[in-house]
């Protein structure tokens, strides 16, 4: 008997940890940079030596607030840190300092788009906490090695409501979050290196039911693809389990990327009592109205706002607007372009066409693009004024300009002798030469095969080395063909 998957609805909530790109750690002056030699970014504070105390990194608070504002959260005025107590070798103090009970950002949402359209996924909270160190089991076959560089690195934990229903929605949610943290410059969003990590809470229920089913937490989702795969697997597993008469038990499972399945790590009975209480070493931190204003004022417009602006004010197609707003560097570049050229659509075409394929060929990202925006703007202007055609501009002038980094398109085109010729006499000569050389095609055209105009045009282009102004050439071709 086939399993009636469609009878069920999945309910998914995500917890995403994002390491903040602050210079120093959340409670000490040690570098928070990734990739240093083991145990070099440490101090008595990080190692929890006797008598050491935490001092809050204000930049981390600002980053958390930025993220909260970008997600439409309400920002708490008076904030506390709590201690989450448990023993583990990578946790030096024997407790993690977290905002478990009093998050700095509450509620809010993240807009996602899937095949089913646009939807706001509700957030429960965004809170600050410190990362733990790393236990390395592979360095030594007898012992576990410990690297405390990561201990104390600031994290925000973004917790959604159980508001998603498909793996696609979860995929879109994490994709959006990653875009946002990168755009705000608060996290590099690198899931493979672990600077962004995701846990998924998944449950199922019969469609139409209100109550939530028993949830399973899935950990170790180190790519957005794996978030999707794990949730897909988990939903099917639970439905098959229930359909075969089984019962879902509350547990923590881990994703195995080698075969896209999950396996049980521990069940609820083994859960810790974390004995949370307010950390007495840290007085409450206050987010004043002034600070809130300052953070808000320093924030760039959000991608969603820019999509609306490009679409509604610059009349770009929605698709173009979204692709531009996909990453911060492209947004920055486009914003510079439209400061110097009014041809917004052409600017978008250039970015999404020649610039993008150039970068793709080189395997580079927009950050690494060397041609400055004002130079590219001169090329756009040159094409739009009809002085060179787009294909010459993109294939001949553009590469030279990229090489130079800064250049004036008119100068480059003049130097390369690529400026378009609008002299009707010159163009008439090229047209005559082409038509004379292809009598059979001309005859076919005469018989009604009007489509051949393209062929003639191509030949004129070739002959003129692309310099013939296409408008005048088309006009002359048509005239002369009619005359023959």
């Amino acid at each position, binding site marked *: 008997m086939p399993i009636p998957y469609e009878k069920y609805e999945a309910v998914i909530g995500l917890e995403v940890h994002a390491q903040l790109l602050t210079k120093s750690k959340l409670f000490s002056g040690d570098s928070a940079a990734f990739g240093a030699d083991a145990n070099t970014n440490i101090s008595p504070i990080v190692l929890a*030596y*006797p*008598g050491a105390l935490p*001092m809050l990194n204000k930049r981390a608070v600002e980053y958390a607030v930025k993220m909260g504002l970008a997600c439409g959260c309400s920002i708490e005025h008076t904030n506390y840190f709590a201690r989450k*107590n448990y023993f583990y070798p990578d946790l030096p103090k*024997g*407790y993690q300092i977290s905002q478990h009970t009093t998050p700095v950002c509450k509620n809010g949402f993240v807009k996602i788009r899937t095949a089913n359209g646009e939807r706001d996924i509700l957030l429960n909270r965004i809170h600050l906490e410190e990362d733990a160190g790393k236990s390395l089991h592979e360095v030594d076959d007898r012992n576990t090695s410990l690297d405390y560089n990561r201990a104390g690195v600031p994290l925000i934990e973004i917790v959604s409501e159980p508001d998603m229903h498909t793996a696609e929605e979860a995929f879109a949610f994490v994709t959006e979050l990653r875009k946002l943290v990168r755009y705000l410059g608060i996290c590099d969003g690198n899931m493979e290196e672990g600077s962004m990590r995701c846990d998924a809470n998944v449950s199922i229920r019969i469609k139409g039911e209100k109550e939530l089913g028993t949830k399973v937490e899935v950990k170790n989702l180190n790519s957005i693809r794996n978030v999707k795969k794990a949730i897909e697997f988990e939903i099917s597993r639970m439905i098959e389990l229930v359909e075969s008469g089984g019962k879902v038990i509350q547990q923590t499972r881990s994703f195995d990327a080698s075969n896209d399945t999950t396996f049980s790590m521990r069940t609820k009975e083994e859960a810790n009592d974390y004995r949370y209480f307010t950390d007495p*070493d840290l007085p409450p931190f206050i987010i004043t109205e002034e600070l809130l204003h300052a953070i808000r004022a320093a924030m760039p417009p959000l991608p969603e706002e820019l999509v609306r602006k490009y679409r509604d004010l610059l009349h770009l197609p929605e698709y173009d607007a979204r692709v531009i707003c996909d990453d911060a560097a492209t947004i920055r570049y486009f914003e510079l372009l439209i400061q110097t050229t009014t041809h917004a659509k052409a600017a978008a075409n250039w970015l999404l066409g020649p610039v993008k394929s150039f970068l793709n060929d080189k395997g580079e990202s927009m950050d690494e693009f060397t041609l400055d925006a004002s130079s590219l703007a001169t090329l756009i202007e040159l094409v739009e004024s009809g002085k060179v055609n787009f294909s010459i501009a993109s294939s001949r002038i553009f590469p030279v300009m990229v090489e130079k980094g800064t250049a004036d398109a008119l100068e480059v085109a003049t130097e390369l002798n690529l400026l378009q010729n609008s002299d009707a006499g010159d163009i008439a000569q090229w047209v005559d030469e082409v038509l004379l050389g292809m009598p059979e095609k001309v005859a076919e055209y005469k018989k009604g095969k009007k489509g051949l105009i393209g062929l003639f045009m191509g030949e004129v282009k070739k002959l003129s080395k692309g310099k013939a102004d296409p408008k005048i050439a088309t006009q002359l071709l048509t005239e002369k063909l009619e005359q023959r």
Partner: protein
Amino acid sequence: MSGSTTCVEAAHYYLSAIRAKLRLNAFVDIYEEELLERAAALDKKRSSGAPIGKLHGVITGIKDVICYKGHKVTAASRILHKFTATYNATAVQKLLDEEALIIGSLNCDEFAMGSSNENSFYGNVLNALDEGRVPGGSSGGSAVAVQAGLCMVSLGSDTGGSVRQPADFCGIVGLKPTYGRISRYGLIAYASSFDQIGIFANNVPDVAAVLQVISGNDDFDSTASAISPDEYTFDTPSTGTYKIAYFKEALEHPSLDQEIAGTIKSFINNLPTQHFKVRAISFDLLDYIVPAYYVLTTAEASSNLSRFDGVRYGYRTNDDMADLTEFYKDTRSAGFGKEVKRRIMLGNFVLSSGYFDAYFTQAQKVRKQLSDKTALIFNDFDAILLPTVPSTAFKIGEKKDDPIAMYLADIYTVFANLTGIPAISIPLFRHSNGMPFGLQIMTYRFSELSLLSLSHQLMNVSRQDLHQSTNP
């Protein structure tokens, strides 16, 4: 603290005093060689005419819970008994900057938990006035070092009376400043929201001199106050009138020794009324403060002491253990003493889900009420007087097996830690059993200036009486 002797001579004097009184067991570690080197350097500097530090040559002992870089700091515990500090506590750095001479680390109750100095990995400290009696705790070594003339001043720590109570038992001055007055950076934590470094000396001006140097803001302790240290002078006696309160319930409490109660009452009644307006007020929360104190401090301690797990530093039972939980259990069972384990267990209990609201939350409410009530009292009064301890120093071993009795004896001292106010014990009295006892004075937060000048005056007032009663 006069200029008539050299630092080297002073160092030798105190080193030989320590050697003569080793049986008191006040010191954990003596920095003889380093002391003599630093003393010589200070002498050289002074004779070159260079300006001298505020504590130039002051021979100072520090409790074995305060970090001094390159020196052992063990909290009198097996779990740290070979641990060497890798940085200076802020208070120590300030002492060194002002040219104090640190002579050694002082014995105490393990992790500052205790009232008799019987909970030390290094054994009991003896009260120099009666070696069969305890010196008090937890800063017993710090008190005895000053009492027996083994150093000029010493630092202790006071979480619930650990400076004032041994000062009372030993007949010296012991100050617990306002919470936040002195940075806690480098002080091994017992209960973070209660702990405060305190000062022992023979007189109030010496306490004030040290306080002025070691207090103030700190970039490494966010609970340290930005309020700048006071300038203390004792040259001109205050001519104003102090409005002073005492708690009726406190002096009538059944646990209070009758002779202590009588002596303090008569002292209060005999204060010259032109300078001291004393009034008895009612304080109905007295019986809640010890339970609230033990719930909150053990909770914080259970978490603060989690870092002592044998992983990164300190004692571990076995390097080769396959099971992590067993490793923790073994290390911490053997590394901590009985009283410390008792408090860790108690703290974990009051924080655990299911009991948190009944204990921790309730105790926090008591603390809040106490603070509110205290603020109201100080609207009307400049200072509160209380006994420091309900009894004089007891016999070694007398209360060792009765932790509850030991805890209840903190009734008068924990109040200042719960509310964060400064409190001092000054050695005004002697009991018919031959032991000294003190008077405790408290003022409002950051009012150490008024606390110290009042204390200084009261010591002067009583000097006459003391001479009459103790020096026949």
